[in-house]
């Protein structure tokens, strides 16, 4: 009868089995206590049942050792669950360094993905199997949530912020992509699929779909069009700081203190430049709030990232895509 009914989701990412193991551990713990209490209650109800309304029960007021036992034992068990959960949570939150980067925006009611070579797709995401993929995304309107059940990952898309999810797909095939945070009329239509491909097929797909300019190249063009390059000179002698090799570094601020330069920092510096001023510079930069779309901000962020001389990510995308599964394993 249940042959056609799914009862358990596919495990299609490197961390899915770890999440499921913890899930089954909690299932076991809760089933044990659930059955224990149920059996005890029913057994007492049967064993001590009386039809005499004037009968009275034993005069028992309690037991300190029992109270301590059933406070401390469950607490210790929940501590085990807590630490195990925290460990998996950290893994889910920390993408490996060598992850393939993809940008995305959520808007009512679709997901738009930008691959670094400039390839765009809507409500469909093609990724290679056996390689960590990190998606950096935001929302252009209300809250959304990017949810890949087969990978056991989810994060809200929040206007004004960057979120990210990462996964390493383990099986070639197609899986659901859902919006999990209610976003209005077609919330349940904001769905799509992730297509996991063999690396070679992925590479063919990537190059076969005549990509225009890469995201970084578009960012570089915008950098010129918006006249960013008139102040942010590469030699550091401009009115704004040079951006070369800045991404991933820690910046000293005029207000004292420091800030790590990540995607969120670059985004904020474009849209709200006054928020953090680099030490030694003046607050001259105008805001670009409302002038640059989220997708173009992402292109600018990617351009700033690409200005890192030392990093592999500046190499052409194809260099990665050819890596095989074992190589990706080594990267971890």
């Amino acid at each position, binding site marked *: 009868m249940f042959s056609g009914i799914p009862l358990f989701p596919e495990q299609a990412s490197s961390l899915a089995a770890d*999440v499921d193991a*913890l*899930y089954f551990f*909690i299932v076991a*713990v809760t089933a044990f*206590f*659930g059955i224990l*209490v*149920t059996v*005890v*209650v029913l057994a*007492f*109800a049967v064993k*001590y*049942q009386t*039809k005499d*309304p004037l*009968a*009275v*029960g*034993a*005069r*028992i*007021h*309690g*037991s300190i050792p*029992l*109270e301590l036992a*059933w*406070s401390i034992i*469950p*607490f210790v068990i*929940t501590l085990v*669950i*807590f630490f*195990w959960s*925290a460990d*998996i*949570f950290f*893994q889910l939150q920390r993408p490996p360094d060598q992850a393939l980067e993809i940008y995305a925006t959520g808007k009512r009611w679709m997901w738009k993905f930008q691959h670094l070579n400039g390839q765009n797709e809507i409500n469909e995401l093609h990724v290679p199997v056996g390689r960590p993929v990190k998606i950096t995304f935001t929302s252009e309107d*209300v*809250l959304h949530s990017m*949810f890949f*059940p*087969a990978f*056991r*990952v*989810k*994060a*809200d898309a*929040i*206007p004004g912020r960057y979120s990210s999810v990462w996964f390493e797909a383990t099986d070639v095939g197609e899986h*659901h992509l*859902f*919006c*999990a945070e*209610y976003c*209005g009329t077609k*919330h*349940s239509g904001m769905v799509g699929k992730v297509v996991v491909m063999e690396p070679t097929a992925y590479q063919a797909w990537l190059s076969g779909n005549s990509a225009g300019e890469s995201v970084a190249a578009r960012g570089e063009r915008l950098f010129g069009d918006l006249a960013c390059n008139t102040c942010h000179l590469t030699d550091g002698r401009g009115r704004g700081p040079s951006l070369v090799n800045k991404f991933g570094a820690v910046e000293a601020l005029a207000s004292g203190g420091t800030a790590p330069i990540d995607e969120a920092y670059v985004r904020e510096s474009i849209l709200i430049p006054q928020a953090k001023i680099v030490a030694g510079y003046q607050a001259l930069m105008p805001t670009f709030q409302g002038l640059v779309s989220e997708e173009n901000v992402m292109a600018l962020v990617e351009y700033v990232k690409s200005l890192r001389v030392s990093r592999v990510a500046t190499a052409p995308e194809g260099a990665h895509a050819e890596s095989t599964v074992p190589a990706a394993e080594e990267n971890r």
Partner: protein
Amino acid sequence: MDMTLTAPRVTYLNHEHTLKSWLLTKDHKRIGLLYMGVVTFAFFLGGVFASLIRLELATPAGDLVSADTYNKMFTMHGVAMVFFVLIPAVPAILGNFILPLMLGAKDVAFPKINLLSWYIFVIGFLFTVYAMVTGGVDTGWTFYTPYSSRASNTNVMATGLGVFITGFASILTGVNFMVTIHRMRAPGLTWFRLPLFVWAVYATALVMILGTPVIAITVLALAIERFLHFGIFDAALGGDPVLFQHMFWFYSHPAVYIMILPPMGAISEVIATFSRKPIFGYSFVAFSSLAIAIFGFLVWAHHMFVSGISVYSALVFSFLTYAVAIPSAVKTFNWAATMYRGAIWLKAPMIWAIAFLGLFLVGGLTGLFTASLGVDVHLHDTYFVVAHFHFIMVGGAIMGYFAGLHYWWPKITGRMYSDIWAKVAAIIVFVGFNLTFGPQFILGYLGMPRRYHVYPEEFQVLNVFSSAGASLLGVGYVLIAIYLVASLFKGELAGDNPWHATGLEWTTQSPPLPHNFETQPVVTEDAYEYSKREIKVV
């Protein structure tokens, strides 16, 4: 039963008959019944929305109502059930009726304010109903920004105003109960002789007073942003959408304890009465209510593990959530232990209480999944969460309300309902409830997101089970209404103390006198001292 029972001549029900005598009453018992009227209507309203939701979800396609209508259905189901059923049900109905009787008092401390609370509650409810009939609201009962402040063009503010106004009823009731418990206890009724229902109501009053102002502030801030375009929550205006979630859950998580603590108190009464024993670990059960009320304020961000809070704050909130689970576990173990070597009389209220234990157990234990950081990333905003909180709110709060209602019904009305039908209803509701929400745990782990109007076809069979269960649940609720109403006309006379229970409320007539007791009761023993009474009986 004693065959010589006669109906009391003067009761709070028959000493005055006019409509005015009800609408201007300062009698806590009548006010409790006034609340029962509104809450029952809201429950019916919320139930109609729930039926439409389950009907729509019987097929994967959106074929019954439009997407916009569906979104309004689940929003209004949540608003009606949370703010106008779950929060007031046990404190405002049973609490109002029973609390002063339990304390040996003539009334609550501030009878006029008590009536005022009801009017405020009704005005808030009318605003909400107005919002529903003039187009409805579609933000979800959580009102998340910026959808609620910017995108939704439905009646957000009329609904918000309803919630805002109703909150004041809750605050006033909390103050009234707290003062009543401090000041109106009968001579000899010391804190540790109080029935555990009183402890639970006290803890609830604390949450009502401290938590409710925050939802008022939150709704006010939402209104300021929606009308005046001040950037508070909207990133486009320089606000922070996540701030809304912090403020909303700072109230709405403790609100869960407003819903569940009083039913827990009612369950303590029922289990002690029908086991003919003191509650096992009285002081642990009493203090666990306070612990839940206090720790309940420190766990709100466990609703936000994937909503953009930092990894470290997620860690703290996960840990505190596990900590708050312990007092609930302690209560459950103590209830089970109370039955050990009891003289268990399986009348209808006890069957309801046992059904409560079964469902609350599932609700509490599934909280261990959603509190788990690693698992909640997957479970958040899926049907697993929907199932979990329905097990707490319906399986816990509503089942506890019905256990309490069946327990005190003879005191409230002076009549007995059909014991056998009440047991049948308890079993139908228990089975129907499990069939409705059990499959949703599986759906949730499979990844079906909540608030979906259409869904992938592979989820259909489990959804059909759920909808079938909801039909059964509906039958159970209708059955309760039938035999309770029938009892008013055909029920046997209850007498003062049909359950042979301890507790001051059972020492006066049923229905009670307008001012509760003929003479001031004096208390000389602890709660639930059945074995001492045996000596008197024999």
